[in-house]
């Protein structure tokens, strides 16, 4: 086809993971470039994402697309087979609603719960649990948020289902537990066990020390502030 597809990402970033999973679901070959986002961002990254200077960046035939959710919608519209967003406008709006909810409520509070201080943690944890309960209701007995197969909400929810689970392990938290959120827990198991998901997730043994270091840094910065 002569398509040139590149992803500028970071191996541990849940956002750049989304772009990679979407391309894999569509069976699109791409070149992956790991950016040193904590050290030294490449000139190319700064050129392709001058506004936010962040990963992921999808480069398709030389044209950059940035922001993970924008990238996911672009991939869906460009490679129409194996759709992961519903066709019906109302169902599409519903999927977009849950995506926003995950990104603005679930993921940030869960991450905050992981590294916040003892006295703040309870309040944040309670808030996170409320959000998880609400997110669980979106599953509504389905295997995946997308129904029988992985949809865009599942791709975005990987931040919660995998990355947060790893984070919790490090912190000795048990927020996403099978007894508290049985459906959501089962979903995260089913999701992580899909072969296409497994082959692109950053390995746990590498992610654990990385997230540990990141949490320590957040706690340090927070203590100073």
């Amino acid at each position, binding site marked *: 086809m002569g398509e040139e597809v590149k992803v500028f990402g970071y191996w541990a970033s849940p956002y750049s993971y989304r772009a990679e999973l979407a391309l894999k679901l569509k069976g699109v070959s791409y070149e992956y470039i790991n950016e040193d986002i904590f050290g030294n961002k490449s000139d190319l990254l700064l050129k392709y994402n001058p*506004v936010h200077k962040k990963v992921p960046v999808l480069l*398709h035939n030389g*044209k950059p*697309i*940035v*922001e993970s*959710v*924008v*990238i996911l*919608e*672009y991939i869906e*519209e*460009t490679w129409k087979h194996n759709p992961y967003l519903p066709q019906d*406008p*109302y169902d*599409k*709006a519903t999927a*977009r*609603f849950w995506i*926003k*909810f995950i990104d*603005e409520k679930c993921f940030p509070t869960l991450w905050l719960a992981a590294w916040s201080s003892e006295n703040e943690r309870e309040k944040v944890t309670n808030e996170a649990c409320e959000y998880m309960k*609400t997110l669980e209701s979106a599953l509504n007995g389905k295997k995946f948020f997308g129904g029988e197969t992985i949809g865009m909400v599942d791709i975005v929810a990987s931040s919660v289902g995998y990355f947060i689970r790893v984070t919790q392990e490090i912190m000795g938290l048990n927020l996403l537990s099978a007894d508290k959120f049985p459906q959501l827990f089962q979903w995260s198991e089913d999701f992580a066990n899909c072969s296409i998901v497994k082959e692109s997730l950053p390995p746990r043994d590498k992610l654990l020390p990385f997230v540990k270091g990141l949490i320590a840094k957040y706690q340090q910065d927070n203590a100073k502030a």
Partner: protein
Amino acid sequence: MGDEKVVLLDFWPSPFGMRVRTALAVKGIKYEYKEEDLSNKSDLLLKMNPIHKKIPVLIHNGKPICESLIQVQYIDEIWPHKSPLLPTDPYQRAIAKFWADFVEKKIYDLGKKVWTTKGEEQEAAKKEFIACLKLLEGELGNKDYFGGENLGYVDVVLVPFYSWFYAYEKCGNFSIERECPKLIAWAKRCMEKDSVSKSLPDQQKIYGFVLHLRKVVGLSKILCLQHISRHC
């Protein structure tokens, strides 16, 4: 298509609500506007948006759609042939969605800081606010609208904030037009269209609303108020 029922639960100063009003007006869609008293939310609002309990809520044939960007995209997809807001090309769509996301991430929060803070914090907010508007000017370039020759998605997402510019300027003691003349020219061009001018409240009215909030509530409490809460 004749018996479509469209209802909008809204609050008149909300820039988020204004986006939906504008999108519906651009497409010539008739709808019922219901003003919400945010200190006494209606049963309908609480039923239609149980998770966030916020306006705007678009109700189409009894089914609710929440979150203004999602609502505008929904409107564009339900009525695709009337004045399309998003282009058909995926790359052009991605650019439009990127800038709409940029407006969403920056403009409301920075604008709010401009009219609710003082001193160094306010100066920093003003500086960043202008920097963001300048980036948007860059994206506009020589086009009449972000959508090209006609109003598009980014125009609809951004133009509501123009109704708040006078309030920002008075509170922040600065001139947005002096810093970003191209953007103001764009906003005035948008306001020449009925679909925009009839969907946005008068700038003086918004300023009056801000003064009222400051007087009645006190600046420190404003940040907590649901009236101007982030996802309203």
